[in-house]
């Protein structure tokens, strides 16, 4: 430190600056205290409260103590702060009043006056007390009095301006205390002085700044003033505040430049616009670049000088603040900013000068940062410095280009002149770096000295930049620098070195789908590959470029011609083929098969039409376009049948191929996650653990080669397939855009053909599409001829003409003229021949080929259908009318009865199942010309009618009713209904009672016919009848042939009435009407109407004395529970078999309800005696009691009453179910034999007069 006695040294602007404190008074005393003081003062921090709301700071104070001199005090207007004495201290150890009065007081007064004259108010008086001194001088006044005096004399109301320091050199607690108090006072005073003086300075500074719009204001002057403040802050170790001052200056200057650019020029700024003459870069190795500072002070600095100086100061402060990375960042901003500002201010700069300046500055900054950081720090902060590196690289590159150092030939004289000029602007190397081997200055000078040196430096820098970019994951930037490098290599004619960089960059652009960079890089790559003689790669790149829409038409044509000229050059020598991917040459858009379902029969012609979209800018003559086809014998034969053909029709037979994806990258490769499993292997003998490990189960996924990495640009390994089956098309000219190419092939072997590769040949160049996706195939089939016969409608109706469709699928058989189908006639089915039967011939794609007249010849047994001639794989379709004849009449007695019963039952069943029609099947055997075997075809016809009959009686008169029910959907017309007795019994007559024919019978409706049966002699027990009616479709129009009538045969039996049953209910005697609850009498009279007949001859007949009698059982049943039968309701009577024999039965019945009540039913049964031959017999009473209900039920089943239905056998069957003792049997009389004369009769029953209600429940 400066000794206090030493003369004031000149101000040195270094870090060593400390605030100045002057010392007056006893110099010896101060000298003795100084060491302790300078040591103690900075020991403890003091809080500095700031004005303008700035945050308070803890500050360690240091001071530069200098001897007080009047010259030190600043004169008015002197703004220097560094030399400003912030505090004045007067030291005295006077303890003698006399001495005080004699000398000290005067001295003090003088000192005070000087201070006052300079209006300095920051002063302090220190009185040092010394015990030793006190003891020596015994007559002294108490010490306080001196201090009091001083305070009294000088510290007017500011007694704290006088401080006592006791025994400062001793080591006692009192000394310590007094030191602490003094130091606190000293620090406080200093800070107060700072606050006050700096505040005042700042105010002045602001005032100065506000005057900046006035003419004559100088930025440089102001710069010096504010920098003074920065210096003070720096002196106080407040680097942050110091930096703020520079930043403010920086911003102010920048704003002026901006305003200047906007036309608001400041006069002083024009000075900075002087041409740049020196570009020696930043100087950061000195804390303060005095040279530049003086230039600024003298207002001679250029813009670059000012910026350089400002940045060097900022850099210094940032480094003090341990923020080297901010230096790097600001440096980049500064360099960019300066370049912009020079442009904006239109400063004339020699070409390359700025590049030199930037290059030097970049390296200077980097070296400065490296100088204050260790390797690890630098490595972990590459992100901050890499910008400077690449900037330097860029600038060196442009310098190289400027000075002709990159060309193959080396620099020419003009280049050399330029280089000399540039080097001149650098000036001499500065002394700080003169000894450094790698100084930026030396580097630049060397790099510009020769081509080789430039290359070395440029490569060094480039590689360093690439490496740094790569290391922090800035791959794109690395590629970009790499591309510059590639350009450099290309200029240097070393394409082999350039290639790798271009490929790397291109891969990157392709992966991310950046079209323009791809095109640009590809163009460079093409040039590179051309120089390298990589024919295949060059051709591929050329084809890509020729199809690239980002290039101009001319460029594309150029690359296209490159391919074509290569192709034409190579045609003479049969060299190897060059296989290139097709997609860059042309794109397969769609493919169309004819026939459209892509199925063709053996020998058929298939054409494949493809749309190839040429990407080339000009027409290209292609020698051959081929499609490789893979053949496989397909097991799935169904696909090749004609049926499949007709059913499966592709929409239009066109297959569209997805357009090649434009350079949209695939989504980022998502590698599958590792699948790890533990693995334990134990010894088989004792199960101890042998080995253990971890198994990755999806190694095959993880270690798979990334296809995209190679297949993007390099020859993509397209393998040319050579197959036996090839579709070819020669001599095609592909115009730009869509081209249609048609391949024709004749199908040979049946099987499936898959289209594999598409290949276009131009000379030795093969453009190959290795896989067609989606897969495309066509099928070739062979088929046997086939005949199908099917009805046109849902079902065929019997009895009327119906249409049947014949389909002949010719398959591989060719139908010749004269080929015919031989139909063996079925008996009951006619094939109706029309004159104009036409056959239509279709191709197998259902396209009508022709039609021809059908020749049908019928003989008794065989119908021959002459087929029209038809080629193979066609279809012949025609329709024939067939007529199923109604089934032939059934003959025979008993069998017919049974048959009718069965058919009757069948009808009943079908009726329940929903009115189904009876069906008949007809089988036709057909001989086809292509086969020695006959084809048998069954046709099912439905009978549209159902017929039922019933016998109606009126006393002894008999009627036959026939009901015809139409089950079909068609309406028919019925005519000529006839009922005849086929036996032609002369005694019988059938008298029709029908309406006039014809009659309409609509769908699902019925028509009834009735005949009266009359006879002259005793009628036979049974009568066979045949009903026939002509039927024709109501809307059928004129029919070609007369239709056979519909017939129905049946038999009526026992139709002759034997018994007349008459029942009568009489009111009780004496009353007029029956009453409820009162018994009435029921009179039943059974009258025999005929003498012995054939039908009576059965077991019940007994003969005695020529008289015949039979046993009958009667039974009175009231189903409607109207009557209560009292007493026996049934009984067995013996009936004489003679006309007019009458049997009367009297019974008591009681009406249960009032009103007109129908009479109870009276039933008659034949009572057959038990017979050993019969396994089951019934006792009358027990039968009635036990099976009364079953009888009732049986009666219920036939609600429509009697008639000719043969129920006997049915009843027998049901009776047979009974098991048990031999009993007499009951046999119901056939309904035609019993006539109930009183059926439908009603009796009036009036309610009884009694109030009470009789409740009788009869079940």
């Amino acid at each position: 430190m400066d000794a206090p006695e030493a003369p004031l040294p000149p101000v040195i602007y270094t870090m060593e600056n400390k605030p100045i404190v002057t010392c007056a008074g006893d110099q010896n005393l101060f000298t003795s205290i100084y060491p302790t003081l300078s040591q103690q003062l900075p020991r403890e921090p003091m809080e500095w409260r700031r004005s303008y709301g700035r945050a308070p700071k803890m500050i360690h104070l240091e001071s530069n103590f200098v001897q007080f001199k009047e010259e030190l005090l600043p004169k008015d207007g002197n703004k220097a702060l560094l030399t400003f004495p912030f505090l004045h201290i007067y030291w005295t150890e006077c303890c003698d009043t006399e001495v005080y009065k004699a000398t000290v007081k005067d001295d003090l007064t003088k000192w005070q006056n000087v201070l006052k004259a300079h209006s300095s108010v920051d002063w302090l008086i220190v009185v040092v007390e010394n015990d030793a001194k006190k003891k020596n001088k015994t007559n002294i006044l108490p010490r306080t009095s001196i201090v009091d005096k001083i305070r009294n004399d000088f510290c007017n109301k500011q007694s704290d301006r006088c401080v006592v320091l006791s025994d400062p050199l001793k080591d006692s607690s009192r000394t310590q205390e007094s030191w602490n108090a003094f130091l606190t006072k000293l620090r406080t005073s200093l800070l107060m002085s700072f606050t006050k003086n700096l505040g005042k300075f700042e105010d002045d500074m602001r005032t100065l700044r506000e005057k900046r719009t006035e003419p004559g204001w100088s930025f440089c002057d102001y710069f010096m003033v504010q920098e003074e403040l920065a210096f003070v802050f720096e002196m106080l170790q407040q680097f942050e505040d110091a930096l703020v001052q520079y930043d403010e200056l920086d911003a102010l200057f920048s704003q002026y430049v901006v305003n200047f650019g906007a036309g608001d020029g400041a006069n002083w700024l024009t000075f900075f616009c002087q041409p740049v003459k020196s570009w020696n870069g930043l100087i950061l190795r000195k804390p303060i670049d005095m040279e530049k500072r003086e230039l600024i002070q003298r207002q001679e600095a250029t813009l670059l000088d000012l910026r350089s100086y400002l940045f060097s100061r900022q850099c210094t402060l940032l480094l003090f603040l341990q923020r080297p990375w901010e230096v790097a960042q600001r440096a980049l901003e500064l360099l960019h900013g300066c370049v912009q500002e020079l442009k904006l201010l239109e400063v004339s700069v020699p070409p390359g000068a700025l590049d030199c300046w930037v290059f030097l500055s970049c390296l200077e900054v980097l070296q400065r940062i490296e100088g204050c950081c260790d390797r690890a720090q630098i490595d972990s902060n590459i992100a901050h410095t890499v910008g400077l590196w690449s900037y330097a690289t860029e600038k060196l590159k442009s310098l190289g280009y400027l000075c002709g150092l990159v060309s193959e030939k080396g620099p020419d004289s003009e280049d050399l002149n330029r280089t000399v000029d540039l080097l001149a602007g650098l000036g001499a190397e500065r002394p700080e770096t003169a000894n450094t081997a790698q100084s930026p200055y030396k580097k630049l000078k060397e790099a510009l000295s020769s081509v080789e040196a430039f290359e070395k430096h440029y490569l060094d820098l480039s590689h360093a930049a690439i490496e740094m970019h790569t290391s922090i994951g800035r791959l794109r930037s690395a590629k970009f620098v790499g591309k510059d490098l590639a350009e450099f290599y290309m200029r240097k004619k070393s394409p082999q070195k350039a290639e790798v960089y271009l490929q790397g960059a291109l891969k990157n652009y392709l992966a991310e789908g950046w079209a323009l960079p791809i095109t640009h890089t590809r163009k460079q790559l093409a040039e590179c590959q051309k120089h390298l003689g990589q024919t295949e790669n060059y051709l591929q790149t050329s084809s890509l470029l020729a199809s690239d829409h980002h290039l101009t038409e001319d460029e594309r044509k150029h690359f296209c011609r490159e391919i074509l000229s290569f192709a034409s050059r190579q045609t003479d020598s049969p060299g190897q083929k060059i296989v290139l991917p097709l997609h860059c040459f042309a794109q397969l858009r769609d493919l169309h098969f004819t026939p459209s379902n892509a199925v063709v029969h053996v020998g058929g012609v298939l054409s494949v039409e493809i749309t190839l979209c040429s990407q080339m800018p000009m027409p290209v003559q292609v020698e051959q376009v081929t499609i490789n086809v893979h053949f496989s014998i397909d097991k799935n034969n169904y696909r090749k049948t004609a049926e499949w053909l007709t059913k499966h029709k592709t929409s239009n037979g066109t297959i569209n191929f997805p357009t090649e994806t434009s350079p949209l990258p695939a989504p980022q490769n998502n590698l599958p996650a590792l699948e790890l499993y533990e693995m334990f292997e134990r010894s088989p003998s004792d199960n101890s653990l042998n080995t253990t490990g971890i198994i990755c189960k999806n190694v095959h996924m993880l270690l798979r080669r990334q296809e995209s990495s190679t297949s993007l640009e390099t020859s993509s390994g397209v393998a040319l397939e050579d197959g036996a089956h090839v579709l070819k098309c020669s001599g095609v000219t592909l115009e730009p855009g869509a081209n249609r190419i048609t391949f024709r092939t004749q199908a040979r072997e049946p099987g499936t053909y898959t289209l594999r590769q598409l290949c276009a040949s131009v000379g030795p160049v093969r453009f190959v599409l290795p896989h067609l996706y989606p897969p495309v195939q066509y099928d070739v089939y062979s088929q046997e001829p086939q005949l199908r016969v099917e009805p046109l409608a849902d079902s065929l109706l019997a009895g009327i003409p119906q249409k049947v469709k014949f389909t002949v699928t010719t398959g591989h058989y060719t139908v010749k003229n004269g080929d015919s189908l031989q139909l063996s006639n079925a008996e009951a089915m006619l094939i109706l021949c029309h004159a104009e039967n036409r056959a239509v011939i279709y191709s197998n794609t259902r396209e009508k080929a022709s039609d021809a007249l059908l020749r049908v010849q019928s003989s008794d047994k065989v119908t021959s259908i002459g087929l029209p001639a038809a080629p193979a794989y066609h279809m012949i379709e025609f329709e024939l009318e067939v007529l199923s004849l109604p089934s032939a009449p059934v003959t025979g007695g008993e069998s017919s009865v049974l048959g009718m019963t069965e058919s009757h039952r069948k009808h009943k069943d079908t009726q329940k199942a929903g009115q189904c029609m009876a069906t008949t099947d007809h089988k036709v055997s057909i001989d086809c010309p292509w086969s020695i075997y006959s084809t048998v075809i069954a046709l099912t016809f439905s009978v549209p009618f159902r017929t039922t009959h019933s016998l109606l009686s009126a006393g002894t008169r008999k009627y036959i009713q026939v009901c015809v029910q139409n089950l079909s959907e068609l309406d028919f017309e019925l005519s000529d209904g006839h009922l005849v007795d086929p036996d032609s019994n002369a005694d019988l007559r059938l008298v029709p009672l029908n309406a006039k024919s014809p009659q309409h019978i609509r769908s699902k409706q019925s028509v009834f016919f009735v005949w009266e049966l009359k006879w002259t002699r005793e009628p036979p027990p049974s009568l066979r009848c045949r009903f026939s009616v002509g039927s024709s479709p109501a809307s059928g129009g004129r029919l070609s042939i007369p239709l056979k009538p519909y017939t129905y045969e049946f038999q009526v039996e026992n139709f002759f009435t034997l018994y007349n049953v008459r029942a009568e209910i009489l009111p009780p005697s004496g009353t007029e009407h029956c009453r409820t609850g009162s018994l009435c009498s029921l009179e039943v009279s059974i009258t025999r109407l005929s003498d012995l007949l054939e039908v009576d001859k059965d077991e019940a007949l007994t003969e005695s004395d020529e008289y015949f009698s039979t046993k009958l059982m009667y039974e009175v049943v009231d189903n409607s529970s109207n009557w209560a039968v009292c007493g026996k309701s049934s009984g067995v009577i013996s009936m004489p078999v003679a006309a007019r024999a009458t049997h009367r039965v009297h019974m008591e019945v009681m009406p249960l309800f009032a009103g007109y009540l129908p009479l109870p039913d009276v039933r008659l049964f034949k009572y057959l005696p038990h017979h050993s031959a019969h396994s089951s017999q019934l006792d009358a009473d027990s039968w009635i009691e036990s099976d009364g209900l079953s009888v009732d039920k049986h009666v219920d089943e036939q609600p429509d009453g009697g008639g000719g239905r043969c129920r006997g056998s049915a009843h027998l069957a049901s009776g047979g179910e009974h098991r048990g003792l031999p009993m007499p049997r009951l046999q119901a009389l056939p309904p035609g034999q019993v006539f109930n004369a009183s059926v439908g009769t009603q009796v009036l029953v009036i309610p009884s007069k009694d109030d009470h209600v009789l409740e009788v429940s009869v079940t």
Partner: protein
Amino acid sequence: MAVCVAVIAKENYPLYIRSAPTENELKFHYMVHTSLDVVDEKISAMGKALVDQRELYLGLLYPTEDYKVYGYVTNSKVKFVMVVDSSNTALRDNEIRSMFRKLHNSYTDVMCNPFYNPGDRIQSSGSDAAEPGFPVITTWIPTCEKRMGGRPGHGPCPLGFPRMPRPLTAW
């Protein structure tokens, strides 16, 4: 006024890129592509810290001598990159932010268009505005067509540069 605007898909391919002086298109493409390095860096550095704050603006990606490149990333990791002329000192952070917000709104509109397939390149309405001081984006009418034709400087560009109905001086 921006000299280049780019919308970049999550997978880093350009959805929309448009620059004002078309003769320098390639340079801007390279610049925007390279800037993705810094975008990636900023996104990963931002990490979780800024997710909550929903700060989408990435700030200055990197300056070059002549241009400043700014970045912005949507929540779905679609990046917007804007290149601004360095000499244009009128553009401060706030202006850049508001430009990005407008861009984001336009982009959102595009995404809302039911005829737009996310991931397809975006085309903007209007023809090539050769006039200097071009406006950037007002409305975008994306079409589903892939970029097929059109070469720099030849005929109307399929990315058809938007033409503003009225000049915007703020940009």
